[in-house]
């Protein structure tokens, strides 16, 4: 068993939880404004594809990063337009965007490379080497030689906490999620505030997808998000829509995924079928939701379109 708990496990945990952390905050900011964003999975997938293509065509992974933000925001704009401006159903719109992203990424892949499956190798995001950390055992593994996205992910709970609880815009976003009618009476533009929240959500979700394609791998694979957007939503519920708790929840899911991966190495396929380990993250997510959540109460106005009264 000592093989399982090692520095490698820590490194894997960081690698696997980073996209979940970014995605869970994408979900958080949207839901706190009263708009459920089930499309996380789709925005991640599209973000992963855009990042890989951006890096492939320019050779500059940071352009890929920008591309993933752009596609995430574009999808978020569509979601916002249908659900905020036209009071459409948030769940169906979310599912629609997921379906569209599966089709869209597959289509583009086939169109550009004339074969499905995956893109050729692209330039990954560079890892940042901090010289004085190189010889420190645990911290060296955790902090050194990571990409900019990892640092960003670990700053996110602080940033998001400060934003949502200490800035006027953040407080307005939360007000729109709890009681839009009152917020409106107090002079807050509910539509605009929700648009901003959903667009930030899209940008974050796109970024989390970029991590999959230009950090974890150096290419895009079809359907590579593999349910991570949904696991992020599970983490959001588990963390009860609070910045610090959802951060820990995402970290927890990343950790269990890392254990699962490590166990695959420890127990070869001949002893225990790989399929058991591959199913574990999903089964565990369900069990955790069933066992620990109790009553999960989201933002009061979540899922409900807001209609301004006509004068």
């Amino acid at each position, binding site marked *: 068993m000592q093989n399982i708990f090692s520095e490698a496990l820590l490194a894997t945990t960081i690698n696997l939880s980073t996209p979940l952390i970014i995605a869970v905050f994408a979900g958080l900011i949207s839901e706190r404004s009263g708009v459920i964003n089930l499309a996380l999975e789709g925005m991640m997938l599209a973000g992963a594809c855009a990042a890989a293509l951006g890096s492939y065509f320019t050779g500059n992974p940071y352009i890929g990063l920008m591309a993933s933000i752009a596609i995430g925001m574009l999808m978020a704009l569509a979601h916002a337009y249908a659900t905020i401006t036209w009071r459409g159903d948030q769940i169906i719109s979310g599912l629609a965007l997921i*379906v569209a992203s*599966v*089709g*869209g990424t597959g289509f583009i892949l086939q169109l550009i490379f004339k074969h499905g499956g995956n893109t050729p190798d692209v330039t990954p995001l560079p890892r940042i080497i901090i010289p004085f950390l190189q010889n420190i055992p645990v911290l060296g593994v955790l902090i050194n030689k990571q990409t900019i996205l990892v640092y960003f992910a670990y700053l996110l709970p602080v940033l998001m906490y400060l934003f949502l609880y200490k800035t006027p815009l953040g407080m307005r976003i939360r007000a729109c999620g709890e009681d839009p009618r009152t917020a409106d009476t107090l002079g807050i533009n509910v539509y605009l505030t929700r648009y901003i929240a959903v667009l930030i959500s899209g940008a974050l979700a796109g970024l989390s997808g970029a991590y999959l394609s230009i950090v974890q791998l150096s290419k895009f694979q079809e359907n590579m998000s593999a349910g991570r957007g949904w696991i992020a939503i*599970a983490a959001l519920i588990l963390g009860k829509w609070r910045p610090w708790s959802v951060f820990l929840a995402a970290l927890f899911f990343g950790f269990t995924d890392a254990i699962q991966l490590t166990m695959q190495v420890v127990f070869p396929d001949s002893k225990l079928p790989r399929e058991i380990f591959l199913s574990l993250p*999903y089964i565990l*997510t369900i069990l955790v939701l069933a066992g620990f959540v109790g009553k999960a109460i989201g933002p009061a106005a979540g899922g409900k379109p807001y209609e301004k009264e006509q004068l």
Partner: protein
Amino acid sequence: MAKSSFSLREWLETTPIIVPVIAVILAFAFGALFILATGHNPIQAYILFIRGAFGNTFNLMETITKSIPLTIAGLAFLFAYRCGVFNIGTEGQLLIGAIAASLVGFLIKLPPVIHQIVLILTGAVFGALYAGIAGWLKAYRGVNEILSTLMLNYPAIYLTHFLVVKVFKAPGVVPATPLINKSAELPVIIPDTRLHAGIFIVIGLIFLVDFILRKTVLGYEIRAVGFNPTAAAYSGISIRKNVIIAIMISGALAGIAGSVEVMGLHHRFFDQFSPGYGFDGISVSLVALLNPFATFFSALFFGAMRTGSTEMQIFQEIPRQLMTLYQGIILFFIAGQLIFITFIRKIIRKRKE
């Protein structure tokens, strides 16, 4: 997550048929831009599409054949949604039902008609039990069913993969189970095509689902819970019981979709058995505005998207994934239908003035 599904569900039942029609037209109009991007003429591509879907007897029958699992999967999503429950795990339930049916099909020897009935029931029972997990979790542990049903798709994919690759693999290169016994097959009903007797099962299920929902106490209670759970609970209807029953019947239907596909078309289970029929069931029933009869026509349309796009890919190398993109656009416009409804209303008003 909030209970936002109810308002839409109510709405869908009163939505004019024009909405899905316009959603489809808009998808094909937007999609034309993507076809232009491939360097092809969209009109020519759509002519190929129609030829591929309906152009000759074989293609037409192929479209109808594909509509069989799509209709049943559509009925599955519809049934749970009438109770306000989102079952997006139809894909997993379909797979579980299909592999269970294929195992009973080749492991057990029974006389013809009985064997067929047993296979369908096997699919139904396994699909229902698998969906029942999510039902129980929702009713007793408060686990959001959108998440649990979606998550349960993955273990189903891995489990069936494991069974077909490592346990029940027939000799040969392809990871597939042995063929089911002849006594369990559904016969082809039009020679030289693949259209099989599963189409009669589809017709039967449509009437059955409509009957249960409209004419039975169970259906009344399920719709009452879907319509307004609080009011239903006040009048003594158990929310828990109906949620579990609705999702289990939904799972049973998805399982039947899988077993019929085994019995009528492939006669075995193989790795990557379903090309997303379970997922498509969601779109099928939403485009049908949750009407059991309309589900069949909606499924025909989705079947046509599959056969038609194959023709487009063969002759013009337009990637078939385009149809999945269309499906997303259609769903998007059904979700945000006011985008164009408002516009249409304005036009109508101007005409009147």
